[in-house]
């Protein structure tokens, strides 16, 4: 792969994918609360006041104009539903649900309309829409701004779900999501925005449904999602010092899930740990553990271990929130428990 890369943040990567896809395809439009900001304010006709609540969509309205970068009212059902309707009729919208926690006010338009139209219509429609949304604890944003809940979207047929962990994956997977002809929910962890990595320049796409091995090893398979990949990699370092080489598998796409890569790793290591920042019940952690137990039972040498958030909302106090989020120490302990 002779791709040139540069060091860039996760935030820049997302922004760059949006620019890339909007330049490539004039039917790609962006919408969301304050994605430009300052709509109708004098002086902001051709520039944005915010560029998204954490600055991810900065500069887009300057480049593509207010006809393609649409500020919205606080009407998530209205505009995300509109994104679905637009997708079914010829646009390729990218709608921002500022925090995933807000899905309770607009879920119907995502899971019951956009996700099911094609099926209910017997294949006579397609809905190429992407919902970008922010997830994750650690921001001291408390109980209604810190959830993950990609498990819920993964549960629903008709949706694809993507959780990148690095700038390169964020760019490549967002490009693939926008180009995809099915509705995709794309989860961005707010604590990843400032993290850096090597970002491929130019047109860059990572195929949906392909896991990535973020670190090779043969002792234990650690499947980690989103920001938890960092936790797993930190744990890997500590464990390597103890002489254990763990394999860190990043599924990247949760629906469809690249079970082949996960199963191949488990067949090699005989041990599974899943690290998932989401709440534990009916989660990706149980989904992956159950799949492995079912498909690779004879290869498992130890019970699968699940490292997750507790069955609680996200608390505000830093002391409490730090207890909530899985840590490298907990990952390492779970790995040791399989040995």
């Amino acid at each position, binding site marked *: 792969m002779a791709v040139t890369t540069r060091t860039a943040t996760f935030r820049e990567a997302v922004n760059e994918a949006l620019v890339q896809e909007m330049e490539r395809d004039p*039917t790609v*439009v962006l919408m969301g609360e304050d994605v430009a900001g300052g709509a109708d304010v004098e002086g902001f006709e051709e520039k944005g006041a915010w560029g998204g609540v954490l600055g991810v969509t900065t500069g887009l309205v300057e480049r593509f104009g207010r*006809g*393609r970068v*649409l500020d*919205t*009212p606080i*009407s998530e*059902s*209205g*505009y*995300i*539903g*509109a*994104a*679905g*309707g*637009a*997708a*079914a*009729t*010829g*646009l390729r*919208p990218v709608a921002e649900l500022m925090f995933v926690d807000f899905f309770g*006010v607009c879920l*119907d*338009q995502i899971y*019951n*309309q956009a996700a099911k*139209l*094609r*099926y*209910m*219509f*017997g*294949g*006579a*429609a*397609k809905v190429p829409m992407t919902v970008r949304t922010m997830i994750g604890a650690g921001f001291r944003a408390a109980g209604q701004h810190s959830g993950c809940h990609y498990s819920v979207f993964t549960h629903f*047929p*008709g949706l*694809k779900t993507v959780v990148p962990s690095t700038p390169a994956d964020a760019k490549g997977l967002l490009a693939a999501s926008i180009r*995809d*002809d*099915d509705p995709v929910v794309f989860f961005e962890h707010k604590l990843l925005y400032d993290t850096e990595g090597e970002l491929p320049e130019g047109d860059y796409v990572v195929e949906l*449904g392909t896991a990535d091995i973020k670190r090779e090893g043969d002792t234990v398979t650690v499947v980690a999602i989103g920001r938890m990949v960092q936790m797993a990699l930190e744990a890997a370092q500590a464990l390597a010092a103890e002489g254990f080489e763990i394999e860190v598998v990043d599924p990247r796409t949760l629906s*469809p*899930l690249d*079970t082949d890569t996960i199963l191949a790793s488990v067949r090699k290591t005989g041990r599974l740990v899943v690290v998932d920042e989401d709440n534990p019940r009916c989660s990706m952690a149980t989904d992956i553990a159950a799949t492995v137990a*079912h498909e690779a039972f004879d290869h498992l040498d130890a019970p699968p271990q699940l490292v997750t958030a507790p069955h609680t909302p996200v608390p505000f106090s830093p002391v409490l929130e730090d207890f909530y989020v899985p840590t490298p120490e907990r990952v390492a302990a779970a790995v040791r428990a399989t040995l």
Partner: protein
Amino acid sequence: MELTKDKALWMYERMVLVRTFEERVSKLFADGEIPGFVHLYAGEEAVAVGVCAHLDHADFITSTHRGHGHCIAKGVDVKRMMAELFGRVDGLCRGKGGSMHVADVSMGMLGANGIVGGGPPLACGAALTAKTLGTQQVAACFFGDGAAEQGTTHEGMNLAAIWNLPVVFVCENNQFAESTPVTYHCAAGDIAERAASYNIPGVTVDGFDLLAMYEAAGAAVERARAGEGPSLIEAKTWRYFGHFEGDQVTYRTAEQSADYRERDPIKRFADQIVSRDLAVPGDLETIQRSAETEIEEALEYARSSPMPQPEDCLTDVYVSYPAAKLAASA
């Protein structure tokens, strides 16, 4: 608004076709030939037809659980509609949707909808496509009086207004949401008054009067097409059948229903066009007979269309997805 003879006959024909379809479906349901939830549009024909008379194939409509009338008014093929109600492979949705999801995207009919209030955001989306691509298409959004109390309807109307989208919101106020009267569930006097909340034109129309509907819808569609934004039309109407087939309809009186039947929108329109010399009684009889034939043919078609294969359950979920991942785990 000028009314040509062709348009008049087309509208009459569509209304009769809806009525004939619905009356037939009611019997088919009673006979056990059509399963599930079936909501009939009979009585409300003038609303869908009066609006769709101003739309062409490229325009969009969003519909409700009570969608047969919208389909037929939009010109959707009744054979494939009937086959869909029967769950057959030749149905519009290949048997996957049934009455509550009957759709024909190729005709701009974006689906009946099982979710009350599901349509308004979708209509905004279709209109956004039209506006963004500069196509001059219009989206008509049908919704019930009950749907007026759903948050999505509010959000959709506000969004269409601020984005100046070419949407015509059509509230089919048949005065009941299931067994609950609009006088109970809706705090507003006329639902059309809510247009003021969005600074858009709002008008209440006698939904039993096709000419009035045609007039009001014409103005709203013209406005939308001219880029002047959305409107709200409230059509006061009445459904002849129960909320769904099987409903005993205890919550309305026989007199009320008889009253409405007396003023039947199809009969009324027949009188109007005959007296205006837009039709002669013979035209109307021909239309009636050919509607009956069309429905019988549709029924024939539906009955003789094969059932899907059970495994077809697993298709049409995605444009692309690994097939093995769609099957049940065991």
